């Protein structure tokens, strides 16, 4: 009887041990899955950390760049040979041509765009066929025209490179006498910035 009990116990132990073994294997598998998921999560977390750090440094870099302001100077030095005025008190008394020289130098570090214009015109003339002008730019003929009776650009949208110089020479001539009382013509030649043209730096 004692031997039978012993055998039964051994049989039970043998069967339970195989069940316990299977259960242990399943538990190991479950634990492995959990550990694997956790490991992947940790790896992804580390990647996220690295990428976030890079994104942050790049954002800072961009922000620093946007805060940096590049200043370009368009410094034009305009020198009139003999002031900027065109003054004819009595046009009929004009003898010979009148000369005007304008030297424009760009002392800045960026190209600039300007207009050369005749403005502040005060005249008793109603006919444009009395006075004419010839204009050259760096000794190249720009035109031979009638002197305007209202504000006019005589050279428009002129680009001057940094460090370069443009010399305008204007010769004003009387075309004919005019039979009116007090024929006078007063005006100014001025240089004004031209903001209509976009400057593209290379």
């Amino acid at each position, binding site marked *: 009887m004692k031997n039978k009990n012993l055998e039964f116990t051994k049989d039970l132990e043998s069967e339970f041990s195989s069940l316990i073994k299977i259960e242990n294997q399943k*538990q190991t598998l*479950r634990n492995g899955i*959990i550990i694997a*998921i*956790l490991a*992947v*999560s940790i790896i*992804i*977390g580390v*990647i*996220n950390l690295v*990428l*976030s750090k*890079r*994104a942050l440094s*790049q*954002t800072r870099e*961009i922000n620093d*760049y*946007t805060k*940096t*302001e*590049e*200043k*370009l*100077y*368009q*410094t*034009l*030095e*305009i*020198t*009139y*040979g*003999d*002031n*900027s005025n065109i003054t004819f008190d009595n046009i009929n008394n004009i003898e010979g041509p009148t000369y005007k020289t304008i030297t424009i130098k760009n*002392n*800045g*570090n*960026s190209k*600039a765009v300007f207009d050369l214009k005749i403005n502040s015109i005060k005249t008793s003339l109603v006919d444009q066929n009395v006075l004419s002008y010839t204009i050259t730019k760096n000794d190249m003929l720009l035109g031979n025209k009638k002197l305007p009776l209202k504000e006019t650009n005589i050279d428009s949208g002129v680009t001057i490179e940094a460090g370069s110089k443009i010399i305008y020479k204007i010769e004003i001539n009387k075309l004919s006498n005019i039979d009116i009382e007090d024929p006078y013509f007063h005006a100014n030649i001025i*240089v004004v*910035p031209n903001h209509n043209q976009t*400057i593209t*730096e290379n």
Partner: protein
Amino acid sequence: MGKKWMILICVFCVLTFISSITTTILLFNIENHHDEIKTTGIKGSNVNYQSTFITYYSENKLNLENIFPGNKVEKNFTITNNSSDSVKYSITWQDVVTTFAEENSNFYYQLNCDDITSQVTTMPISNATIIANQELKGNHTNNCTLIIESGNEIPLENNYSASYIIKIDEGGTAE
């Protein structure tokens, strides 16, 4: 480990996994956007142009020969700031060539501008500053006259030549 706990951990892990994947995708998108900004160019949007016109209504040079008592020369010029930012400028005497051995109190200059008038100062015998770091506000023109005069007790037969130079400070604008 109890079954309930196991399920809870699994759910937590799966959620962490999904959120991590989502975050990774988002971060990759952020990186792509950054690369796009860098290559296509914020560059250029921060360029600030400072336009200044210096106009001399006659040559910015003095050529005085045989200066006599009461000699007076006026030189007109303007400085125009076409930009909205203020700018700083200086005016100096340069290329001074003279027969004066030393500065003479009977030969002097004064600068009269819309926004500043200098003291009467003897003409220098070498390079010198007329005004320095003067501020010119944005969209403003400063009309100036430089007056050079000789007094009654100036020694005769002296010559003086020099240039007056206006320089815009490109080191930075005034605050």
